[in-house]
């Protein structure tokens, strides 16, 4: 028998689950996330095996969802020095790299920057050719000052040849193993946002190295010695460790994604809205054809505007620990503050003195937690009004995630799910599962391997069918590189966007594929 071990490291909890080949959940555990991450992972692994007869050697695949890359950016820690080569001159000098960044983050990255000749026009013509000698001169000047390079070409989403050309020069000068990120592999249209994402990706190379080696070591130390290891990406797919080392930024946002995927698995739905109620916030995501919907707007990461793919998540201040403020005039407000992980000492039902949404749920008889006697004095009318307001806030949030009118299926997961009302307007049915509290770890464990590709085609020059086939094949190659089994790879998403103002019927085509993990890679 072969088993899968999935671990999700969140801000508060580290969860672990074991699934068998038929995706049955055999064991699950929840422990506190530790400062060093690694010891929390080790504890979770020990605990999850303690409940089962499963031999650790029989685990053949292990996957990790982690927030360490996000934390490194937010805390400005462990980032390496990045040299930014923007290939776009004479255009774009008016906004140098790092304009309007937080100076602290710039200081942490200790950047070198150069804008060298090159780049494409919107219609595929060249702005300029690449001056390789100039690139070499720049790299010589940077020698010893940069740990990684980020290469960003104007309209590289249209044509990445020049970025590849500059990468080859970097390999000649610094050696072929020198870490490099190409913007065309990371973000979409919008040079500044894509450049920012590419810089962050390069700055995270040391962090991801530590995560991957730490994960491998933790597993080996506890006796999981036969497993192939994967990291979770923010689109609900996995990357093999060597691939993850090149694209650390794709781990950012994988937490909510895993919850959405886990919710999909538990509910057996492919299209639904997922509501994950935690201690402090409710995160809403949208499940489209089994995967989370991507955000279409620029996303801030640690105060930096980026445009790499991120799950479309709407967070509102409703959680189990959310505080209900009562005012002198008899009115009240719900949140947005929360007692967070201190709920077991602060909430009324646990002997504290703060009225939380958990207390309201207990007062209304919806949950049996702590000591219900301790909320008996809470005015029933107030409790009902609070619940009415929570209902309204959740309904508004759900509605804002819809792309069309009509009722939707809702999957309710997370540790704070008890505060949700029994019915919600705009919702066909609320789906819940007793494993909902570890939906994120389940999401990590069931993840598949994916690949995606984006390019602009002129439908006047290329037949539409050929363009779609070309994009699909390129996405497939990405999936194979990431560790997918060729015969299982299938297309899950194809988007075509007509580009306004551009002649030649220019259309941006984006293909996304997924497949099962290649068994040959298994130990």
């Amino acid at each position, binding site marked *: 028998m072969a088993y899968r071990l999935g671990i999700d490291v969140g801000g508060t909890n580290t969860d672990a689950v074991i699934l068998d080949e038929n995706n049955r959940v055999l064991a699950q555990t929840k422990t506190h996330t530790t400062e060093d991450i690694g010891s929390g992972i080790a504890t979770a692994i020990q605990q999850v095996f303690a409940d089962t007869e499963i031999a650790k050697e029989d685990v053949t695949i292990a996957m990790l969802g982690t927030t360490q890359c996000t934390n490194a950016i937010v805390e400005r820690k462990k980032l390496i020095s990045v040299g930014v080569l923007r290939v*776009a*001159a*004479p*255009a*774009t*000098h*008016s*906004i*140098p790299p790092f*304009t*309007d960044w937080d100076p602290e983050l710039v200081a942490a990255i200790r950047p070198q920057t150069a804008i060298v000749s090159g*780049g494409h*026009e*919107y*219609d595929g*013509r060249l*702005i*300029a050719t690449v001056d390789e000698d100039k690139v070499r001169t720049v790299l010589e000047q940077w020698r010893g000052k940069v740990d990684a390079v980020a290469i960003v070409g*104007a*309209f590289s989403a249209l044509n990445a040849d020049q970025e590849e050309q500059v990468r080859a020069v970097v390999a000649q000068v610094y050696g072929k193993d020198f870490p490099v990120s190409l913007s065309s592999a990371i973000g979409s*249209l*919008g*040079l*500044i946002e894509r450049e920012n994402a590419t810089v962050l990706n390069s700055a995270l190379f040391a962090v991801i190295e530590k995560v991957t080696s730490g994960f491998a070591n933790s597993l080996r130390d506890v006796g999981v010695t036969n497993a192939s290891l994967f990291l979770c990406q923010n689109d609900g797919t996995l990357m093999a460790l060597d691939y993850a080392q090149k694209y650390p930024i794709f781990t950012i946002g994988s937490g909510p994604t895993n919850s959405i995927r886990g919710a999909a698995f538990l509910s057996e739905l492919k299209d639904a809205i997922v509501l994950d109620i935690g201690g402090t916030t409710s995160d809403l995501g949208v499940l489209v054809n089994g995967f989370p919907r991507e955000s*279409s*707007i620029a996303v801030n990461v640690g105060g930096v505007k980026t445009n790499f793919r991120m799950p479309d998540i709407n967070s509102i201040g409703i959680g189990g620990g959310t505080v209900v403020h009562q005012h002198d005039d008899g009115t009240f407000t719900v949140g947005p503050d929360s007692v967070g992980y201190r709920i077991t000492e602060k909430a009324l039902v646990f002997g504290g003195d703060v009225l939380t949404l958990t207390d309201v749920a207990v007062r209304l008889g919806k949950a049996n937690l702590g000591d219900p006697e301790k909320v008996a004095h809470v005015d029933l009318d107030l409790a009902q009004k609070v619940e009415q307001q929570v209902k309204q806030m959740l309904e*508004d949030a759900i*509605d*804002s*995630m*819809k*792309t*069309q*009118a009509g009722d939707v299926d809702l999957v309710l997961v997370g540790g704070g799910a008890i505060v949700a009302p029994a019915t919600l307007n705009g919702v066909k049915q609320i789906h819940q599962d007793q494993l909902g509290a570890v939906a994120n770890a389940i999401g990590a464990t069931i993840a598949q391997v994916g690949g995606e590709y984006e390019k602009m085609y002129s439908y006047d020059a290329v037949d539409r069918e050929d363009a779609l086939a070309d994009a699909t094949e390129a996405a497939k190659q990405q999936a194979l590189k990431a560790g997918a089994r060729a015969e299982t790879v299938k297309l899950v998403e194809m988007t075509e966007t*007509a*580009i*306004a*103002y*551009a*002649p030649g019927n220019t259309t941006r085509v984006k293909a996304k594929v997924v497949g099962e993990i290649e068994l040959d890679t298994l130990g």
Partner: protein
Amino acid sequence: MRNLTKENIENIATGASFMGAGGGGNPYIGKLMVLAALEQGGQPITLLDVTEVDPDALYIPVACMGAPSVMMEKFPCGDEFQKVIRALEKHLGKQVKGTFPIEAGGVNSMIPLVLAAQTGLPVVDCDSMGRAFPELQMTTLHLAGVRCAPMVVADEKGNLSVLETVTDKWAELLARDMTVEMGATACVAQYASTGQQLQDGAIHGIVTKCEQIGAIVHDHKLGTQEKRQAIVEVTGGYHLFDGKVVDVIQKVVGGFNRGTIVLEGLNASTGQTMEISYQNENLVAHIDGQLVISVPDLICFADVDSLVPITTEEVKYGKRMTVFGLPSDDKWRTEAGVDLVGPRYFGFDFDFVTVEELLHERGAK
């Protein structure tokens, strides 16, 4: 006369997004250009009141022309703005004393500030649209008899052209063609004006108005209702509608984004439906089939809670918006103004009636 701080610039950019009436391109790239020019040892940016200009001196607006979506990927080298100004100075044989935005709405609100930071030229607190419009001849300076040409068009590669044209519409046509060849974005200088012409023909105080709107939106101490009221007061406009987007019908026609947005009423508008037609900018709005506002008056969107401005590109199903109606400047509400940018120019089969009158009629029913 006063110097603009970084905070002032952030506020102007936000207000410019609002005053774009849904179009004009997101001012984000423009704002970054201003901040970069200042970071690179730029000079303080001075804002002049129109009353402070020299009536005989020369003032020239600089702008970017082309597709804002292309500019998100390929933006200027940065020296084009000085080049177009110097070329026009040379052509006219007269030195320029200041600059101003050709349109206060959208990304072009920011371009004169870049030039100001680079050269120390003051920015005059006026523009020639009071909003954003898609074509070069759609200016109040045109109405006042100022000529668009001689006009200079330049790209980042060093190509530069001086245009002499017989009409302002010809300037639009020829410059538009060059812009496409230059990669769908170009830097332009046109409508060379005397201080006197600005006092007579430009829309005054518009930069400050944008700044005031931005300051209201960014003021964390104000509640939603207070912000809404403050915006109405600053703009002399109307709070037309609160609604949720229930449909967006969109198509690209001849390089322009055309479409219809349908809102289902919220709050005081519950039970009503608003439909807005747009072509890059918002053009016409109906509530339950009844016309409430049309171009050249402004239809401006903002988030229903935060009041952060929303452009038509950002509108999608489920978005909750507050819709404001702003009277356009009186210069647009003339026969010539309405001929140039009224509903009939944009293909609607009715005459322009002011938003005040339309709301009065609606109230009377």
